[in-house]
């Protein structure tokens, strides 16, 4: 692979938008949690500390977004070579939204008693099938993979209206995310000011 093939696959404008889409879930999650922490951080010291913690958090989110973006770009190198330009952007953009969703749900599930719906678990166990214990895990995995990865990726790859609508949706996400990047720039300035002697 050389720069020429790389450039065929990723157009410059798409790369920037893809980065913005990658940044979206990380920033949204961080901002929600920082807002949730405002009270106890302010109680611990004062409001300037809240702003400081938020600024560092956005800085970490920016770095994490960038690392994730590199992973998504790497992922882009293994999808079919006949897909280029808009379709690659739609495909990778979609994946960069759902992949961070699951670790977020995982955190909620592990630490906030965000339990599976009782009726689903009861139904699975009521089947009495010898594989019912494994079936719960297997069923969840299959649902996750097919539901969030397989079907949408297939539709984006082969159905133009889905691809087009996905792209339009991603454009809006990228625009919203650019506001987060503006916040990141302010955060960098805040961090610099706080660390000047």
């Amino acid at each position: 692979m050389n720069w020429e093939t790389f450039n065929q696959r990723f157009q410059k404008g798409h790369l920037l938008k893809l980065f913005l889409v990658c940044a979206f879930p990380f920033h949204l999650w961080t901002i929600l949690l920082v807002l949730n922490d405002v009270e106890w951080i302010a109680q611990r010291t004062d409001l300037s500390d809240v702003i400081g913690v938020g600024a560092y958090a956005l800085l970490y989110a920016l770095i994490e977004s960038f690392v994730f973006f590199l992973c998504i770009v790497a992922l882009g190198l293994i999808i079919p070579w006949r897909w280029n330009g808009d379709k690659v952007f739609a495909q990778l953009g979609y994946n960069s939204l759902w992949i961070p969703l699951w670790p977020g749900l995982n955190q909620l599930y592990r630490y906030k008693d965000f339990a599976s719906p009782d009726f689903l678990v009861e139904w699975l166990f009521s089947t009495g099938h010898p594989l019912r214990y494994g079936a719960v895990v297997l069923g969840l995995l299959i649902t996750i993979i097919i539901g969030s990865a397989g079907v949408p990726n297939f539709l984006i790859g082969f159905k133009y209206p889905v691809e087009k609508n996905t792209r339009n949706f991603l454009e809006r996400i990228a625009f919203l995310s650019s506001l987060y990047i503006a916040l990141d720039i302010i955060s960098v300035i805040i961090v610099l000011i706080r660390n000047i002697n």
Partner: protein
Amino acid sequence: MRLDRREFLKLLSLLPAYSILRPAINQKPTQISSNPYAQNVLIILFDALTACNISFQGYPRETMPKLSRLLDRTVVYHQHYASGNYTIPGTASLLTGSLPWTHRAIKMNDYIVPEVELFNIFHLFDDYYRIAYTHNPLADHFLGQFNEDITLHQPLESLFLNTTWWINRFFKNDYDTASLSWDRTSNTNLDGLVYSLIFSDYMKKFLQKPPPDIAELFPRGFPTMRYENTFLLEHAINWIQNSIRDFIQPYIGYFHLFPPHDPYNTRREFVDTFLNDGWEPPNKDFHHLSPKRRVTREEQLSYRRDYDEFILYVDAEFDRLFAFLEQEGILENTWVVVTSDHGEIFERGLIKHGTIHLYQPLVKIPLIIFEPGRESRQDIYSPTSCVDVLPTLLHLTDHPIPGGLEGDILPPYRNTEIDPNRGVYALRAKLIRDSWGPLTSGTIMMVKDRMKAIRYFGYRDAYDFELYMESDPYYEIYNLEDDPEEMNNLTHQNTPEIKALMDELEEKYYEVGGAYR
């Protein structure tokens, strides 16, 4: 000059050498005293060690059995107070002999004001070889401020197992906030949900992977500074032992070691020592000025037990250091001071020390002085303050005591009795907007003889986080002799003695509560 890959790799190989040589590079030339009789000073400070949980200070649990056995050649202070309830004011007062409203290190990340900086212990011992180390970045913050006066300032991260050294390196001036944010980004032990969605958690696990042989020794997890900077007290003690032979005499060493500060991860042999021992502290009501996240009685007891078992670890490691000092003959010409910067609390719905209160567990700290050649134990029961330590050490080592210090020479080293009317003070004013401005909200404490007065002020205006004040200012008065647990607030008795005490603290507040300068 063009740097090719081979040359770059060669230069890279110098990095480990730099990390080893860095302490030596940091050493500064000093004019050491030529007095052959000059005595050394070692200050060993254990962070967040409350006197209220120490066996030889009346605590029912045997938390410091080894140190108890060493006391027959020491001076033990039974009413010694920190000047605040957390590291910043407590350490600043100890190192400068001045009270928080004078040094103005009140809030997180505050520096000591320039006038007081000149009275720092390292500056006043300028004819000594001066060494300092701390695990605690808040204390290291001051060592950084005094860097020009310290001969050897051992880098904080040098005695960590694996560290978030990069926070201290890149965000040194804002360590507390940067590391708090990093904790919330990566540490699931705090709230469960972390700011980072994917990577930091894995990176943290990778960074904190401990060597298995050491991990077995700490089944509750390693002692850590802010959950990331893992360290062993053993390594700090070993470092002191190995380095002390190289110190040029006379020397003064300040070693501010983090245990028993939380998290209370004690060593294997001390785990569950006090489980089912049948002892329970008195049950105290929640305070109406406590935060809304109140800790249940069961949690308080559990945290207390973990803390007490962590003190056993401190006791064992100090004993190891003491045995070394004795064996090497160092104690023959060295004053050893054991103390703390603030206390820790496990009652009234409160745990640790992040609180507006100044109850005894939060401010009463140990002070033990090992005197060269002393053969008997002496117990001092009059109230003393951490600001007294610096003038006392200057007096004991024949240094002049500058007029600006606010402490007194401690008994029994003074020629006269300590003034019974002297007040011993502490302040907590973390919520004020500007540390150089007036003290608009906070808690101030005065201990005088057997009485203690606490004044809460300005909380209603500062924040409305469920802080309900019956009156502003709100007072509490306790008779520590009759009521050492501070359960019976005497303010409503309205006797002349109580009124005089309140008036005196009120006057003190108006004397010191103005803006700096």
